């Protein structure tokens, strides 16, 4: 991978380390008291901090995952070249669209 992809992957790894910890901690905390889906949505709806947090989370994941997947595919298969890079851009776009759509849906629900 190029040095810029390397920096992007390491940089997003730092963001993900914090984001995943907060995400898991929040889940554990939220379900501990027996919150219903409706009660959770009531808390996330219109919550801008929630939207910004998950927006950053999704963008970091959409950058981080395809770079790693590209390295794995290059090592374990003979797939190389522009078709691989294009497919990884597709994976990044898919993660971005699905993730942001989910975060936005919970925000406006």
């Amino acid at each position, binding site marked *: 991978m190029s*040095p810029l*992809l390397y920096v992007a992957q390491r940089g997003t790894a730092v963001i993900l380390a914090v984001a995943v910890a907060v995400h898991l901690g929040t889940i554990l905390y939220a379900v501990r008291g027996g919150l219903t889906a409706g009660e959770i949505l009531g808390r996330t709806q219109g919550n801008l901090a929630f939207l910004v947090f998950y927006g950053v989370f999704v963008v970091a994941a959409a950058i981080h995952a395809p770079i790693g997947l590209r390295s794995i595919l290059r090592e374990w298969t003979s797939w190389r070249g522009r078709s691989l890079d294009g497919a990884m851009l597709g994976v990044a776009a898919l993660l971005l669209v699905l993730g942001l759509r989910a975060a936005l849906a919970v925000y406006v629900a």
Partner: protein
Amino acid sequence: MNAPIPAAALTDPTVEPAPDAMLTVRIRRGDGFQAFTVARRSAQTILDVVTEIQREQDPTLAYRFACRVGMCGSCAMMVNGRPRWTCRTRVAAVAEEDGLTLEPLRNLPVVKDLAVDMEPFFEKWTAAHGAFEPGDAPPEDFAVVAPDSPERRAVDAGIECINCGVCYAACDVVAWNPDYLGPAALNRAWTLVNDVRDQGQAARLKAVSGDAGCQSCHTHMSCTEHCPKALAPTFAIAGLKRATARSALKRFGSRHFRRSA
């Protein structure tokens, strides 16, 4: 039938073998293995064993050595599955219960028996810009290098490489990606990146980047674990990752944010 080797002699190089002790040596020859039996001797090295087999039992056995004292880097091979410099490896330290299994170095094409073709290894050394670039007017590039400067210390840490190929054979990334430059070439590049006199840094940093370069290292540390000279190519590669990242960010910044300057 071979006399059993005393258990202590298997791990302790100072223990003298029994006078009648024998060693079974399985040597890869082409697609299969051929077994030989050799007498155990005091302070016997793996290279001693191979030489005795070639001189006394089978003169067609091919292997490579030169200095016999750990300087030339010629005699490396796989000993019981691990890459080792055979002239400085004692039988008593590495023999397993049933003896020794010797194979040619991993990750390199075999010429015959235990001799491998080192050309891909040295081609990558060249591809990583492993030669000093003096610039157009070397006398004007003269620089005083303080022995205790961080750069000089970084060079010292990696400079004693003897090109034996042990790290290259130990590296799983080379096994997965034959284009990967490998620990020795990258370690060499790192010593030159820290040489203030060198004038070819931009090209070198470019050469050691990318899918065949330092960013592909998984930090398994097999190279550092096996290096017979106790060098740490893993840390050299980590240094290259930092240096190439800094250089790329600088280029990216000047391209996108200082266009008007």
